[in-house]
């Protein structure tokens, strides 16, 4: 029952926000996070074309490992929110939905944010902290 980290990936596959909330996963450099986000973007693009009944699907929603779970929320504008949690975390979907809400308020309504660019917004940080807990 822990939330390890949150990523926001823009529609081009670039990592625009990354934050850790708890120990439990290996610490990576920012470059490694960028590569991982790009890889996930590619995997997600493949999974969204794997639907057996034709037409496009939403793509991968949950990827589970032995010690962690990755929940992916794809928005209508192709932005991806990824939540890294422990396997037992029950409300990852809820948290992601709330993150999306905060993102649309504190990022998209902020005149000083450039779309598709890294998120540097105090309001977003504050409200994510209020939702998930303080960062490391």
């Amino acid at each position, binding site marked *: 029952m822990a939330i390890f980290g949150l990523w926001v990936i823009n529609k081009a596959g670039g990592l625009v926000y990354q934050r850790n909330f708890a120990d439990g996963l290996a610490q990576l450099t920012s470059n490694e996070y960028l590569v991982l986000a790009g890889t996930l973007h590619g995997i997600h693009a493949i999974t969204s074309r794997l639907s057996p009944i034709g037409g496009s699907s939403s793509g991968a929603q949950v990827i589970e490992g032995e010690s962690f779970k990755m929940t992916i929320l794809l928005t209508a504008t192709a932005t991806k929110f990824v939540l890294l949690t422990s396997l037992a975390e029950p409300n990852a979907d809820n948290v992601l939905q709330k993150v999306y809400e905060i993102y649309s308020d*504190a990022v998209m*309504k*902020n*005149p*000083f944010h450039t779309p598709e660019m890294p998120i540097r917004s*105090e*309001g977003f940080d*504050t409200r994510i902290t209020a939702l998930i807990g303080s960062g490391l």
Partner: protein
Amino acid sequence: MAYSQPHSRVSVLSTSSHSSSVEHLSPTASTTRFSLPSIPATPGAPAYPRPAGVRPNIYDRNLNKTRITEVSGAAFTFLFSEVVQYTQKRVSGINDLERRLNTLGYRIGARVLELMAWRAEAASKAPKREIRFLPALMSIHTQVWRAVFGKPADAIEKSVENADEYMIIDNDPLVERYISVPKDMSTLSCSSFTAGIVEAVLDGLGFPARVTAHNTPMAQFPSRTTILIKLEKSVLEREEVFKG
């Protein structure tokens, strides 16, 4: 007289209305200029049949009914965000940006004052208007704020050092609710827009003043903002005459 020396910021408006005062009388002729929907001029009868369940066009609504005509907050924030981005591309610095936001607010304030005066006084047999400064300030703090933002402002203060300075304080200004100003522009206050509204209302009531907005955050109110009003000398002199 107010007409002999129009305020520099409304000069654009007044020249355009002089040049086309005839056009204004005909709603169809002005469609190209204001993009109004064309309404067939048939006085006495409803302009066109309205399907049931469709809300009336904003131009057909009663100006005096405020209860059901609230504006979407999200729509406003997106619009204001675009306004700030548009303005920011066309200015050279923070002062310039604040001045332009103030000018935009000024044009709204002039209309707010007129609309409020009409709503509050039009029906009364003896319409009145504030001629003393403090009641005028109180009505801005409560009535104007309520008309524009849906809640009164949080406090009024008088400067200790300068007799000509008054402050209106808003703990959570609506226009800045979703705005995070980057660190290198930390002195910028987007409430300059609100300051412009206040300046126009004061001007319209006959209290010329210079109004600016400043960030004054507190621990529990990180976006707390002070609207600073610096009155012109003539206003203070007139207040003295009233006292005597």
